């Protein structure tokens, strides 16, 4: 319980000041810190040949995002495939097969960090740093950048003036990295090293086991682990150094380390509510958004905590009665594993400190639902962007309900906007359910570790996690096959770029329209009623899309088990 209190308190106490700092650091207004950070930022712009002050059209901004990410994917793909011949490989690890390398590159370039490999055995220190850590910084910073661009295009009240451009991608990106992510990551990395997370470029020590009857040599894989785990947690990334992620004691050694890592997981997504409130001036709106998110979050966490306190039915009468400890670490117990599990699926982080595959069915189902919704704080930047997408849909529905022409912040929502908004929302069930159906229909494609209903849940979870850019898994899946790798690549790319760039385009289109003056019939977007409507739209859209699949997977599993 103390741990739980410490984690919530840490997020609440650090979230507000961090958010206000981020609002100043990332907003367009000049601040005193510009000169301070210019020491690092100016050389970056100069070396890259970028005029950071030139604002871009939304098309140029989106294109810059896509081109940089194409480069990131290529860099990571090449490093993974040829790591065997490259330096910083003390354990002599061979190159990755092309398909797993491609999946890994796309997975990290989309802030997903879904892993079809086990890092400690299949990646060199160079791959874990040059390829993975670079992407773990640039992808959350991209979410930040696009969110700030949308906020300054759509949310800032500027009368009827027509906005010029949405900002400069490279400036937004660099500020996110240099002013927010990098300083936080350095602090967290050192704290974690203190707690026992390795920080070394040495080869793995080889030790003889203590019991002389066990004639095995134990290899203890090390590396610059702490620096990666810090940004993995802070950047809603989730891809760990070791295969089972932060359940491994080397990656998450103590209760204090667990408090730091769990708090880091939601810190920036929560802080962003305050940052955007500051940048846009729409404090009541952001308060409403935050309230909806908090309610979703508390409901989900309560369900998962309750579910994991229940015994595992497979172990009935084989021991003293106890909670479901299968797949969990004793130093955390079930509550802290459940809290992490629900937060990691809400925020699209995807790191784990327990194996979700062995959660009780109701807990596992809640994790899936968190990822369907994916805007309960959500990934850095993309969580709020996704929420705005739902907000646009709710504004459309709400306007029609009160008999007004659909509008958002006084700007008319017309056919072009709604067509793209619908596509971005409907792509999720289409891709997840379509690929799941294809996979179970193809003989030999599934390769899962569990029979029956849970086997279907494993497939559903994998594609849901890919589309939500989450990265956690029901990890019993034998997913390092060309089919799994390539099918997930599709889900990863669509799930990342469509819901991120459509709101940017819509924001720019709306900004170019003339605003109608607010009148009696205007939909009050910061009202309790409208936030209730938005929450309802989120729940209904996701239940309509996914309830049948949930019935066939976790619900059937729960019913058969008797709870």
């Amino acid at each position: 319980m103390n741990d739980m209190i410490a984690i919530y308190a840490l997020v609440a106490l650090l979230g507000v000041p961090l958010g206000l700092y981020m609002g100043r650091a990332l907003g367009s207004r000049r601040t005193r810190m510009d000169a301070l950070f210019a020491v690092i930022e100016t050389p970056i712009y100069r070396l890259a040949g970028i005029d950071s002050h030139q604002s871009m059209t939304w098309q140029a901004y989106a294109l810059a995002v896509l081109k940089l990410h194409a480069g990131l994917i290529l860099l990571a793909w090449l490093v993974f495939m040829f790591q065997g011949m490259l330096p910083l490989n003390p354990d002599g690890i061979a190159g990755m097969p092309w398909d797993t390398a491609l999946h890994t590159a796309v997975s990290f370039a989309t802030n997903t960090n879904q892993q079809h490999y086990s890092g400690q055995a299949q990646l060199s220190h160079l791959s874990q740093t040059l390829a993975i850590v670079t992407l773990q910084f640039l992808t959350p910073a991209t979410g930040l950048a696009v969110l700030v661009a949308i906020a300054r295009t759509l949310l800032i009240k500027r009368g009827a003036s027509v906005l010029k451009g949405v900002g400069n991608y490279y400036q937004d990106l660099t500020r996110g990295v240099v002013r927010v992510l990098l300083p936080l990551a350095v602090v967290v990395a050192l704290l974690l090293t203190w707690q026992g997370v390795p920080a070394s470029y040495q080869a793995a020590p080889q030790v003889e086991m203590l019991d002389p009857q066990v004639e095995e040599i134990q290899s203890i894989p090390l590396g610059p682990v702490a620096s990666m785990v810090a940004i993995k947690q802070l950047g809603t990334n989730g891809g760990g150094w070791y295969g089972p992620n932060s359940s491994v004691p080397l990656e998450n050694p103590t209760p204090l380390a667990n408090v730091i890592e769990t708090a880091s997981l939601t810190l920036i997504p929560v802080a962003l509510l305050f940052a955007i409130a500051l940048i846009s001036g729409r404090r009541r709106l952001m308060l409403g958004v935050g309230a909806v998110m908090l309610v979703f979050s508390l409901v989900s966490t309560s369900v998962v905590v309750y579910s994991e306190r229940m015994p595992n039915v497979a172990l009935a009468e084989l021991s003293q009665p106890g909670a479901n400890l299968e797949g969990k670490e004793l130093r955390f117990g079930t509550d802290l594993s459940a809290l992490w599990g629900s937060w990691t699926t809400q925020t699209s982080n995807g790191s784990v400190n327990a194996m979700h595959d062995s959660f009780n069915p109701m807990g596992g189902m809640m994790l899936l639902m968190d990822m369907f919704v994916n805007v309960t704080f959500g990934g850095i930047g993309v969580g709020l962007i996704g929420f705005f997408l739902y907000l646009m849909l709710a504004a459309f529905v709400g306007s029609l309900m009160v008999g007004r022409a659909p509008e958002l912040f006084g700007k008319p929502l017309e056919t072009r906007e709604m067509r793209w908004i619908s596509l971005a929302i409907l792509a999720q069930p289409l891709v997840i359910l379509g690929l799941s159906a294809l996979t179970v229909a193809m003989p030999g494609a599934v390769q899962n570790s569990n029979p029956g209903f849970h086997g279907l849940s494993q497939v559903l979870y994998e594609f849901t996690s890919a589309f939500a850019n989450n990265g956690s898994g029901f990890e019993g899946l034998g997913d390092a096959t060309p089919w799994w790798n390539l099918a997930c690549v599709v889900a990863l790319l669509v799930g990342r770029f469509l819901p991120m760039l459509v709101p940017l385009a819509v924001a720019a289109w709306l900004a170019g329209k003339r605003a109608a003056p607010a009148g009696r019939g205007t939909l009050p977007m910061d009202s309790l009623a409208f936030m209730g409507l938005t929450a309802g739209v989120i729940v209904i859209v996701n239940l309509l899309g996914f309830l049948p699949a949930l019935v066939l997977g976790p619900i059937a599993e729960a019913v058969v088990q008797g709870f």
Partner: protein
Amino acid sequence: METVENVEQETLPVEDEALQTRASWSSALRFLAVMAVLLGLAYPLATTAVGGWLFPEQAGGSLLRDASGRVIGSRLVAQTFVGNEYFIGRPSAAGNDAASVSGSNLAPSNVALRERAEADAQAIARREGVSVDQIPVDLITASGSGVDPHISPEAARLQVARVAQARQIDEASVTALLEPALENTGWLGAPVINVLRLNASLDERYPAAPGADSAANDTPSNTVE
């Protein structure tokens, strides 16, 4: 209705300049190269160097040494124990191999989980001379990492009699070693026993007579396939 708060009319950095309408490949690739060096090389190198300098023990994997200075393992990685003169840890889906760490990934609905737990519970009941309903649940559940170094204090107490007998010492001497092997006794977390540290302290204090009553041909129950 949106209240008009005192929002300053912010302007983008330079509004009068022409908008950039294209994004070039050269900016993207040059920016990527600069960031890769800063974030992918300099940041891990710097934090690893500083962390290793401040906390050399932890940075190097929290290795444990015996009296002669030989490395016997890591405080953070469980080992396999089969001899009766040692405490056993939790079941491991990875055979306590830190290079292939893994959980079982078996769902509660999976019969394979039931079968594994049944075999483990019976082996433990036989070995400790207790009935299965006395076994703490951590001893029959595989951890998430496969190298969980801890067991509950209860699970340790269950094994005291058998360990004392195998080492031909009295139970109180073994019980006395549990306390120093406790971890997480502070404000956070729940107290747990580090099995490797406990067994190492046993070996140090009460070296087992070579070839003593340790021929545990019984199946080593803390390895799961």
